[in-house]
């Protein structure tokens, strides 16, 4: 949900000629200024024989700071964001590299080991087919994270392109795109996802292809709000003086778009980051309901289905609590990072 932007009443202030000299010294030979009384400079007793050239200010000129490097420094200072990043990195390692260390990766059905509680050989116990829960958790992590990222990339691409087109070209294009976005946004998301998920089940698409379809689905349904956001950014950016300057210089469309995109990038980055979190949650809901990623492909969402049986729910919490916790922690970490990015990229905070 986006609240209407508030006009903060900033006026463009044109300063009448400031009498104080803030212009840096010109790169020309220095000539001693005449004093106020019009006389030349008379060396005072003890003054150096020839007038000294004013040296460069004694302090170091601060390193030229691009907005990106400033943002990077500020991000580094945000402890929670850094923590989030480290956790995410750890989670990636866990999911993608972890299985390499596990002796249970084939996921063979082992009837003798069904439903064993956590022990030394199976740190998180085994599930209803005798598979090691920890390994499945790691493998599921791969899927869930992958779905999250790919969906986000998809929605950002579609949303950003459409948003830029709408905001930059206005007119009919804008109208069409925004109407389409409106329609899609008015329709409640979860019912549609569920229904399409059900349709997919009926069409009996194989478990592997399901993943891709799920990615497409989640990604595609998220583009309207992104497009809206990008469009409103573009709309406000194109009125800014620097765009007017670009126009006055006679720059081509492509270069102007580049300017716009670079300025819209910070918001986009933040939204994209948080979008991964949303996508992961969406996938988990779908899979939990049996309509997203289906077994045998593991995903954190469908591992949680174990909670649906009363016995598993009550007596075997090791089946469903770990995936839930995994989702929870990953999403928190993403949120922390996204929030940190927002603070770092936003020039308003003054600390």
């Amino acid at each position, binding site marked *: 949900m986006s609240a209407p932007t508030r006009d903060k009443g900033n006026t463009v202030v044109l300063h009448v000629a400031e009498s104080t000299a803030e212009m840096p010294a010109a790169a020309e030979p220095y000539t001693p200024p005449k004093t106020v009384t019009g006389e030349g400079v008379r060396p005072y007793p003890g003054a150096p024989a020839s007038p000294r050239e004013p040296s460069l200010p004694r302090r170091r000129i601060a390193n030229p700071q691009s907005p990106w490097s400033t943002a990077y420094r500020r991000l580094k200072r945000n402890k929670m964001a850094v923590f989030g990043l480290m956790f995410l990195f750890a989670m990636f390692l866990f999911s993608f590299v972890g299985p390499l260390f596990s002796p249970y990766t084939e996921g063979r059905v082992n009837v003798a080991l069904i439903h064993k509680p956590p022990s030394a050989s199976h740190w998180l116990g085994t599930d209803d087919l005798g598979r090691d829960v920890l390994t499945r958790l790691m493998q599921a992590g791969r899927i869930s994270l992958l779905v999250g990222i790919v969906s986000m990339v998809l929605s950002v691409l579609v949303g950003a392109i459409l948003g830029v087109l709408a905001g930059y070209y206005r007119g009919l294009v804008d109208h069409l795109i925004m*109407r389409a976005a409106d329609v899609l946004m008015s329709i*409640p998301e979860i019912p549609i996802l569920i229904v399409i998920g059900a349709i997919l089940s009926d069409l009996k698409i194989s478990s592997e292809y399901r993943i891709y379809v799920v990615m497409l689905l989640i990604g595609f349904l998220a583009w309207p709000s992104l497009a809206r956001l990008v469009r409103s950014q573009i709309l406000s950016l194109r009125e800014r003086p620097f765009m007017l300057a670009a126009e006055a210089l006679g720059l081509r469309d492509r270069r102007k778009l580049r300017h716009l995109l670079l300025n819209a990038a910070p918001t986009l980055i933040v939204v994209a980051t948080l979008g991964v979190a949303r996508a992961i*949650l969406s996938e988990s809901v779908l899979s939990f309901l049996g309509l997203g990623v289906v077994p045998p492909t593991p995903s954190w969402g469908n591992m949680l289905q174990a909670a649906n049986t009363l016995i598993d729910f009550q007596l075997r919490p090791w089946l*469903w609590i770990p995936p839930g916790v995994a989702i*929870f922690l990953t*999403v928190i970490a993403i949120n*922390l990072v996204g929030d940190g990015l927002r603070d770092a990229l936003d020039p308003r905070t003054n600390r």
Partner: protein
Amino acid sequence: MRQYMTKRILYLIPTLFGASLVIFFIFALAPGDFLDSDLSLTPERAAELRALYGLDRPILERYFIWLGNALKGDFGYSLQYQQPVGALLKEYVWNSFLIASVSLVLTWTIAVAVGVFSAVRQYSWYDSLITLGVFAAMSFPPFFIGLLLIKLFAVDLGWLPIGGMTNTGSQSTGFAYVWEVAEHMILPSTVLTMLSVGSLTRHFRANMIDVIRLDFVRTARAKGLKEKTVVYKHALRNALLPAITLFGLELPGLFSGAIITERIFNWPGVGNMHMEAIAHRDYTVLMGFTLFLTFLTVLGNLLADWLYAVADPRIRYK
């Protein structure tokens, strides 16, 4: 103002039409229908029923029939429950409304209080703690928190009932009934509140932080007003402005039924009904209900726009 609202109302119409198209076609094009899920029917009988219900007519025709009926208020007939969809909705929607409204009040109260507190004490460790808490609330998968709470409070501790709206087979009336419902309501409302309080708190906090930095707050301080006045009368009033629109957008949520939460707690609301309809391919119910929700969403948007104009004098006089 009138111009502003008229324009907005006019936009409603194409949006609703477009949405109805999308909704209808998604459901109609879905393979299979209600009759497929009833395995006891012979093919001939199924074909007969199809003709009876008009399910064998060309799609476009069905769309217009459906739309025409909908505009007259007739959302069709549920094949599963053997009731008109409208009546079905009415039966269940108020249960959903109950927990949704309680959750709404709680969410907003907590969000405003915590958001303002957190903003006024930005950078303190209160703020960090609250931020962490808020993120935790926002990051729970919706069903997970419900399951955890059930496990903790209902199963392990046994303090609260596991699910449903009343105790099974209960015949209580009057005050005892109210008490029973209230008891059953605690966990689902809590879950709903927890799920939405996070982002709203962040929103208020961010708004408040922005507003506190603005020039006019400095002027208010320079006038020697009490800090309380500065924060509540000047800063908060401005910070709440955009939130007013959010309030309008809560409208659809009140009636849409939290699908996941209701399922987990077995709460007899429209969300549950929704899931059942999906499972049984009762597309009439699905179409009608989704259209209803879309209508509410659009209405909610309209309400939000209107509220904003009412609250912010700058918009009013444009």
